[in-house]
């Protein structure tokens, strides 16, 4: 069981490292989107500070979603997905391994790049820490939920944009609480703990159900 999990995890990470650009592109997409805003809305400090958490989180949503498009697509196109479904291993386990690999490669880097982005928006150190923590808890939820959408839109023309149509509305709670936590942390009196409890609860739920739902969706899509 663990061996199989490790095998798929290793395979996906190796594949990604063979094409190092793939990993970097998500990161750069995130940075570019975040940097576009000051160009579009002007660079007033006060406003940027207020905007910061929201913009960073929206950019994280978009970056995660764009990267997700390829989560199963490559395996589907070359037939390896079909083979995985026929290997006699629980599909949800394989899916979970793929999701974890995907998050390690596209979600985790966002957490580490966050301070850089926070600086662009003149966030305080405290707020930056909170932002990193909220991204660390929030981005796995994005990957898990997004996997369901990626499985459903597998092999469809215009998959990327259809995926966003399906998934972005489902991302809203993460967006609200993720950016909420950062916004609140900028006010002295307020407490960010409830936000993290909520995000943590989401994460647990998603971890339980999303692999199952994605596996079911894959079975439907490969048919």
């Amino acid at each position, binding site marked *: 069981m663990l061996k199989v999990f490790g095998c798929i995890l290793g395979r996906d990470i190796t594949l990604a490292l063979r094409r190092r650009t793939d990993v970097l592109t998500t990161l750069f997409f995130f940075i570019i989107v975040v940097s576009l805003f000051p160009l579009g809305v002007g660079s007033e400090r006060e406003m940027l500070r207020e905007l910061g958490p929201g913009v960073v989180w929206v950019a994280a949503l978009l970056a995660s979603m764009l990267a997700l498009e390829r989560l199963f697509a490559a395996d589907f196109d070359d037939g390896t997905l079909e083979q995985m479904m026929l290997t006699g291993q629980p599909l949800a386990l394989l899916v979970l391994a793929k999701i974890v690999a995907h998050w390690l490669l596209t979600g985790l880097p966002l957490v580490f790049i966050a301070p850089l982005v926070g600086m662009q928006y003149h966030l305080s150190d405290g707020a930056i820490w909170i932002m990193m923590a909220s991204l660390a808890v929030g981005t796995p939820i994005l990957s898990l939920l997004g996997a*369901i959408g990626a499985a*459903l*839109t597998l092999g*469809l*023309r*215009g998959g990327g944009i*259809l995926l966003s*149509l*399906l998934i*972005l*509305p*489902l991302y*809203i*709670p993460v967006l*609200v*609480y993720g950016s*909420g936590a950062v916004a*609140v942390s900028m006010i002295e009196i*307020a*407490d960010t703990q*409830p*936000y993290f409890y*909520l995000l943590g609860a*989401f994460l647990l739920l998603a971890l339980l*159900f999303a692999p199952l*739902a994605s596996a*079911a*969706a894959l079975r*439907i*899509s490969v*048919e």
Partner: protein
Amino acid sequence: MTINLFKYAAPTAFYPAAGRLIPWFGGLALILILFSLYWGFFETPERLGGSNPQKEYYRIIFIHVPAAWMSMWLYLVLAAWSAIGLVFNTRLSFMMANAVAPTGAIFTFIALWTGAFWGRPSWGTYWDWDPRLTSELILFFLYIGYIALHSAIDDTRRADRASALLAIVGLVMLPIIFWSINCPDPNQCAALHQRSSLSNIESNILTAMLTMTLGFWLYSFATSFARLRGIILLRESDSGWVRKIVEREART
């Protein structure tokens, strides 16, 4: 009872039954809607009472609230049929879900539209990011997502099952989404939300509103049955009974 249900769960039996029911539902819906329009425009006061009295534009309530209710109710129906389809693998349930979706989306749009035209005179803006309005917008996105996914897949069976799964995931997420919009700050959530209640509304207004709701409800039965009949014809087109029906209806 159960025997009856199973009998009508087959497209063959359902097609003619739906055909007979549609005129009844449609006719009743028309009567109820016309009645409530009459009642709403001529038998109700010119302003809505309460602490923040609204002038005649409050009459939008007669369509706004029923449409908003229908939009949520129909999503429930949609998800329920989807779940039944996935669990029992009955083709008719998927078709049912498919038939309901466009009507639901239309009612959602109506709720948004009428809300906007109510907001302009009463709040001075067509749109505000009030939780209720935002959740309705999200509901609209969910409907559109269902329809878009279904039509993006060519193989009807895969389309049915995939969009059914999406509808169920949407249903699970809906309360979470609505709640997160309603209470973006968990520290002081309870204080934020207040519910206006129906109980202190004048009974004439209530009558018009409830009849309209019933009318909309029957209307959605009629339209989704009609759409369902079309779907059945298309999907069963190579079976004998459909050919017979087509020949019969070509003559009339």
